[in-house]
């Protein structure tokens, strides 16, 4: 690409065109390296550095805008060159030879990919060198559903529809309860008599008769008495106390 242009001394516009033609500083370096017309493994890094720096200098002299990454590369190459020229014992680690070797390896890789790209593009490409069928009939796959349902599912579904839509009567069986009203009366009456803390259970009617010994009735009485206690506390007529979670609930009258 840039080969022809960079071999001869350039006019301003030619050079300008060229700088736009490179894909970054490594690409420019590779082009310059190729101009040495030797195997990349044998290129003279020093000569390459000089070419690059000269090139950038010339671009600068022609007041061409040189992108920053080209200048960064120039600075690094200038550093590499001076390190390569220094006496060996003054060299730091990594050695400039190592840096030069790495640069060479990078150039070799870029060069290999450039050639690979060119060879790839030169292959017989579909739509340029070979052609597919211009008007294929196309293959069509029609999906057909094979629906499955068995006899039992059918019958069960009908049963469910019937069951779902049948009027349903809910029967609640009568059972012994202590109403909230009677609990409220009993608890407040007892609070009027006693002054000290009393456990909630002690407000329940004593299980002396067979009726009140019935467990379900006692549960109902406890629930109603609890609600009654809350109601009295809300009205400011009773105080509630519970020493621990789920512990016994105590209440007493609030002194008027």
């Amino acid at each position: 690409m840039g080969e022809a242009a960079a071999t001869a001394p350039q006019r301003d516009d030619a050079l300008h065109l060229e700088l736009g033609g490179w894909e970054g500083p490594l690409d420019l370096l590779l082009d310059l390296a190729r101009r040495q017309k030797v195997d990349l493994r044998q290129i003279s890094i020093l000569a390459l550095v000089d070419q690059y720096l000269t090139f950038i200098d010339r671009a600068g002299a022609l007041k061409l805008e040189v992108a920053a990454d080209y200048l960064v590369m120039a600075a690094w190459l200038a550093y590499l060159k001076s390190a390569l020229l220094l006496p060996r014992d003054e060299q730091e680690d990594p050695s400039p030879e190592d840096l030069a070797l790495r640069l060479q390896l990078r150039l070799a890789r870029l060069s290999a990919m450039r050639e690979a790209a060119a060879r790839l593009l030169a292959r017989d490409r579909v739509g340029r060198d070979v052609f597919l069928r211009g008007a294929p009939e196309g293959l069509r796959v029609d999906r057909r559903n094979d629906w499955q349902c068995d006899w039992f599912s059918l019958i069960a579904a009908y049963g469910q529809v019937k069951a779902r839509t049948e009027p349903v009567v809910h029967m609640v069986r009568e059972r012994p309860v202590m109403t909230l009203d009677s609990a409220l009366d009993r608890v407040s009456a007892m609070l009027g008599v006693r002054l000290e803390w009393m456990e909630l259970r002690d407000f329940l009617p004593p299980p002396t008769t067979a009726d009140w010994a019935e467990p379900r009735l006692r549960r109902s009485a406890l629930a109603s008495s609890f609600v009654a206690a809350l109601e009295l506390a809300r009205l400011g007529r009773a105080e509630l106390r519970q020493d621990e979670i789920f512990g016994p609930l105590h209440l007493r009258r609030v002194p008027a």
Partner: protein
Amino acid sequence: MMTPPDDLVRAVEATLFAAEEPMTAEALSSHLAGVDVRPALAELAQFYAGRGVQLVERGRRWQFQTAPDLAHLLRREREQTRRLSRAATEVLAIIAYHEPVSRAEVESIRGVQTARGTLDVLMEAGWVRVAGRRDVPGRPVIYATTPEFLSHFGLSSRRDLPGIDELKAAGLLDPVDDAFEALTGEDGFADSGEAEATDALENDGDSA
């Protein structure tokens, strides 16, 4: 072993293959620097006769096309086994027990709306057909089951469907959903409100 075709035959073959439209012999000829392509066309037509692809002339234009006896290869049917959704099964059952019924009647029996696709599925399955229109205002379409329905479910007639009493005896009318669930492994309906939601969901699937 056969002799390879000559360059002109190859050129005509490739040109017609890549062409987006059938080409007349004249068009082919002008494409190929004016040579007479007819002998090449004749040779190709004979060569491809009996193959899976043939070179044919239609209204003076030449084209490659699939051999007529292989046309079925271009259009394939793929069968997919699908289980009927619960909603569709219910609708089918209602039609079977109450036929002929209109869609509105099905809905009033089910207590929920029926998605459009549900009846289509049953008709696609070949189990339900349109059985005319009810002679009432609006003249709604009425549906009935088909002979395929009977044969698929192994019934000799609709009278073979178990009656309500039998369903009850089998526990299929228990208001608890557990019965259905236990028997089918499907989710039951917690209440009718949820049933609607579930059905809407299932019907969505049907209409796809």
